[in-house]
């Protein structure tokens, strides 16, 4: 004990910088790779989308006995990839509605930078589903939502003739995905629903039921 004390005392009043311990490893979706907040415990304004990850915190009411089992889902996102959101959109559309295994298999053959982005996010979401959202089989998932957001935009300059300047935008993309438990839906786009009799009748009934009757009780 004394030895420890003496070693502390011998340091004197100099502040000793111990870089060896950086306690938190920051996830890639953080905008900064190294936290600025740790040195001063000040509140920082949160950046980036907040509504999407908040869906993972929603708790549903308990199900009654005999009720159909509510499928689990997980919402995941990765922010600020140095890639155009417009280009990422094509890959995001491709995996939409696929089972997770099929999506991962097909992404291996897509020769785009976006394929790596989507694959990385899907794998992370799959792991989250199993670890935190009570999904039993990791293959029993499908991509129910997959879309792109606009991230950071950095503006640059390009020299033109006669002292003029051109404007360059360096775009960053967000990628959002929702995995749902169970087999994928036959059709995820409402405009692609079959226009046959029974379906149209069902639609009509739904519309009538949702109709609001004004000045009623």
């Amino acid at each position, binding site marked *: 004990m004394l030895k420890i004390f003496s070693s502390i005392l011998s340091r004197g009043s100099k502040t000793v*910088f*111990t*870089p*060896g*311990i*950086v*306690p938190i*490893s*920051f996830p*890639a*979706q*953080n*905008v900064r*790779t*190294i*936290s*600025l907040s*740790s*040195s*001063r*415990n000040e509140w920082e304004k949160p950046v980036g989308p907040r509504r999407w990850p908040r869906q993972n*915190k*929603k*708790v*549903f*009411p*308990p*199900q009654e*006995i005999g009720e159909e*089992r*509510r499928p*689990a*889902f997980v919402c995941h996102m990765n*922010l*600020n*990839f*140095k890639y155009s959101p417009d280009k990422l959109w094509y890959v995001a559309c491709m995996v939409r509605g696929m089972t997770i295994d099929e999506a991962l298999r097909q*992404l*291996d*053959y*897509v*020769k*785009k*930078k976006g*394929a*790596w982005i989507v*694959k990385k996010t899907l794998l992370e979401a799959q792991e989250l589903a199993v670890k935190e*959202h*009570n999904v*039993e089989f*990791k293959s029993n998932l499908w991509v129910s939502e997959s879309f792109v957001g606009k991230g*950071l935009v*950095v503006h*640059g*300059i*390009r*020299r*033109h003739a006669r002292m003029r300047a051109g404007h*360059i935008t*360096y775009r960053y993309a967000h990628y959002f995905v929702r995995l749902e438990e169970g087999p994928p839906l036959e059709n995820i786009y409402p405009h692609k629903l079959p226009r046959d009799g029974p379906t149209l009748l069902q639609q009509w009934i739904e519309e009538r039921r949702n109709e609001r009757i004004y000045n009623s009780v």
Partner: protein
Amino acid sequence: MLKLNQLRILTKLVPPPMIFVPIATKTKANKHWNPKWKKFRKLKVVKIKLPDFYDESLDLKNLTPDEIRSKMKEQGLQPPKIYQERTFDISSTSDAFEPYVPPEGDGKMSLISVGGVKQVGTLIGKKSRSYLTVRKIRTYDEDFDVSLFAPEAQDIYVNLHKAMTDVPLDRHKIRTLVTEKAYPDVVHNLRYKILKWDFLESIEPPRVVHGRHTDLISKDNIFAQLTVRFHTKQVLAVYDRFGRLIHGSPITAKDVLEYVVFEKHLSNLYGAWRIHHKIIPEWLTVAPQDHRTLRFDKEAESTPTDTKSLPSPPADSQEPSLSTPLASGTSQPQLSTA
């Protein structure tokens, strides 16, 4: 011409057989055949440093402490403050001292049987120090009566479990019912889950079986602990975030035998009896809580220590058994089950 980052992705994603297939060379119609001015066009762009948030060479996991230090210096960052303080409480003790040892087969053996008679005999022998504790409590609380305390303890017990079913969880209410030591055990794993719990009846009236007191720091700073035996009928169901049943049943009543330690800070004028600990005997075999299929990784396969996937023995609702531990480390251990 392929860009460098495209090349990196191609090598990453294209499986081996694809390498032999000629990768489509990009032919750009609007590209000049003479690369003479290319260099100058490049010079027109003002170079700026674009951040890469997915640069693996910047991942803290891959960096040595010295590298982290130099990177932080580059950005002009202060080293993170390292908090090494340990919090401690003086309003409760850190453990149950001289805990009660429940007799094996308690709640099953009849008083008439040989084992039952033996149990009663050993219990009487251990009671003398408990009487001292009761006398100590009376010096602070003159109206204290052991027989009146047992139903009061049951109220605390029921109120706590009711508070755990609240949505959203009222943490301030729970803090008035449990000590600082028991609090993390109570709220552990309760997040994003819903509990349904119902107290049906007492099979046997609750009774105080054990009592101890101790002083901390100074002689007059006294804590008292009383162990109460509850033999009750309860209903428990635990639901996950999506409202799906993961443990117990909302319609099955089970007999539960529990030994709960209550603690009071006697020296504190405003001290109250609070739940402090649950006694789990060593001989109790805990049935697995979770019946999920697990996937073992290759390293884990060689030493499969996880027995979660093993089927549990069928639970007999007629026979009472001891409860599962408060913090047994399994996924849903908040409450007792028979």
